[in-house]
């Protein structure tokens, strides 16, 4: 591994937004192919629960994809669940993403995301305020969250329980006067308890990538919609109303199962839908 670079607070490249928070880190360790200037790009944090639903994963991924494609730096914490999906989505969108770690810069935590870390590093950055060798510890993650919020103009909470760590990130963002947005979830699902509470407190609801881009004064990336076949169109119409399994789609549209499977892949390749645990959802 190449020697991690260090960015000190007095360096010109130290991101100004982060320097402006209540207790900015004295130094930042950087790893990856990205440049330190990337940290000063217009950035959005996409955070949420580790244990999340298929809906949360799907939204995090397609949202990150749209936002990264529109030119925003997508920042998250590389945790399992929503965080990981946010990074993956940004990579899919061909954008740049930055992961803020709660452990030493040389560690890939969680280990299952080592491959993800490698992909982030290709063009983006891993960032940590901890020197190499520091072990991950529970109390380091809230501290890490202040950096995530600090780097970004806006923080989007995708899915969070009432007492999720993602809400800590939202709190930091609010304290620093940054924008906080939340993705509405089902009111009956405990997984959406935290995000729905944020909405009640006045967070901006996210109903599409446009809502986030508006905060940055950007317009959505020019939509070049891939044309899909008629069977695919008909499936998509149904999915725009509600998430469904392949069998339910077959039943509702009367399309032959073999053909429907092919059409669903067509939609997936066109990035118009996502698949989680056998359930298909329209992208945001």
């Amino acid at each position, binding site marked *: 591994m190449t020697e991690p670079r260090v960015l000190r607070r007095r360096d010109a490249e130290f991101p100004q937004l982060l320097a402006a928070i209540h207790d900015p880190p004295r130094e930042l360790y950087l790893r990856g192919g990205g440049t330190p200037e990337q940290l000063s790009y217009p950035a959005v944090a996409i955070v949420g629960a*580790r*244990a999340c639903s298929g809906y949360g994963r799907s939204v995090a991924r397609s949202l990150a994809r749209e936002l990264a494609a529109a030119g925003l730096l997508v920042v998250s914490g590389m*945790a*399992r*669940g929503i965080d990981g999906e946010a990074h993956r989505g940004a990579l899919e969108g061909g954008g740049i993403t930055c992961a803020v770690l709660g452990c030493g810069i040389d560690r890939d935590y*969680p280990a*299952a995301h080592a491959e993800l870390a490698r992909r982030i590093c290709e063009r983006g950055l891993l960032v940590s305020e901890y020197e190499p060798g520091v072990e991950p510890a529970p109390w380091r993650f809230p501290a890490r969250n202040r950096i995530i919020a600090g780097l970004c103009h806006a923080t989007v909470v995708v899915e969070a329980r009432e007492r999720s760590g993602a809400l800590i990130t939202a709190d930091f963002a609010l304290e620093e006067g940054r924008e906080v947005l939340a993705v509405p979830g089902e009111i009956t*699902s*405990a*997984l959406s308890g935290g995000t729905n509470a944020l909405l009640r407190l006045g967070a901006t609801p996210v109903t599409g990538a446009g809502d986030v881009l508006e905060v940055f004064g950007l317009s959505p990336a020019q939509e070049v919609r891939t044309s899909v076949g008629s069977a695919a169109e008909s499936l998509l119409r149904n999915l725009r109303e509600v998430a469904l*399994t*392949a*069998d*339910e789609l*077959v*039943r509702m549209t009367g399309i032959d*199962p*073999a*053909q*429907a*499977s*092919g*059409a*669903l*892949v*067509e939609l*997936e*390749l066109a*990035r118009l839908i996502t*698949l*989680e*645990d*056998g*359930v298909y959802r329209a992208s945001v």
Partner: protein
Amino acid sequence: MLARAVTQTLVGLEPRKVEVEAHLQPGIPGFAIVGLADRACQEAKHRVRSGVVSASLEWPLNRRITVNLAPAALRKEGSGFDLPISLAILAATRQLPPERLADHASVGELALDGRVRPVAGTLAVAEGARRGGLRRVMCAAESAPEAALAGIEPIPVRHLAEAVAYLRGEIDAPAFEPLSAQELEVQGGADLADVRGQERARRALEIAAAGSHNLLLAGPPGTGKTMLARRLPGILPRLSRHEALEVTRIHSVVGLLPPERPLVTEPPFRSPHHGASAPAVIGGGAAPRPGEVSLAHRGVLLLDELPEFSRSVLEALRQPLEDGVVAVARVGGHALFPARLQLLATMNLCPCGGRGDPAVECGCSAQRLAAYREKLSRALLDRFDLAVAMPRPRALELAAPPGEESAAVRERVVAARQRLYTAPPRRTEEASELLSSAVDRLPLSGRGRVRVARVARSVAALAGSAVVESGHVAEALSYRMPAELPSS
């Protein structure tokens, strides 16, 4: 006084000729069996002695009896030596003509009243006898149809007295009923018509059958994963004569053949419990015995609740899945067991089983979920060509009309196999392009690409198409391993 009978013992599945020599000499009465005989074999002394007396034959008194099982260095096991040992002793005491034993192999266990009982592995013994140039094999009446499969004349005997009478030439060889074609007809197993809904999973099952692909079914409990899996053998083509003999030999050695159906004509179906040990699944033991993978040879091995199997079993599975054969090396010998099988596995989407079920909220922590899924190594999941998520059907689906019957599906599978064998469809340029773009856009590796291409070929063959079109590739892509599971 010396006499010798011929039989066969098995090393793994391979028969080896064994000469049973009986030598009687005056001296202190005694009865010894030498030649690396195992416990069951040693106990033959008591059965043979009682059997001979019960058959109203004379047990040599005041004689020292030595029975040698040659070659002496080869380990012998089982109770099949009872009959040859008693015949050799009777020939040594000239109660039957010794020369008659030279062209009869014999195998069978004796009851204390002299009846002859069937033993496991009769088919392999009969095959060994035929290869050794013998024309007849004497065995229990129940085993005769099985022995006849080896292309040798069986001499079915019910009792030791009957065997002796035949060898003395007092009676003709007892008759036996060869297998009638009717007996080989299959009794109807579980039918696909019972499965309502789950159209996609049914379709995947059909494709898996057509291309002999390994299939993984993932979904919450109660969605019919196991029910569907059990119906795979019913849509596979029947075994050819050659395959049937291969399978029958293995099942015979383990003693699994039902006497009324000695020839296995349907693809076997095995589903070991997830507590099974590696030797039980793969094969092994001090004297190597075939495991579940070999019992599923030319058929289906279902691993229900795949992540519950021990890691050592799952890792040991990779080699037979790749090579189609299990090599068991032991101090006592070396054995090869065929294991060309189709693997079917089911799993829940999470340890609590709630995931993928709209009615239940999954309570698994992220770590627990990751640990559950990481138990399946990438290398193992790479062996599955198709994966289908089976979410819980809603009420609407259960009310669906019964599905298509197995027989109709089997016809399509047979036709597709024929096509794959004679003229495998080739990809069109368009289809290749779609495959390449999928590699770019989906998490799909080079190996994954090969698997998708293989499945696409089966899809095309099922459709009766001479070429693999992009639609076929698209469908094949929909059965790739879900991104949530570690796979390349």
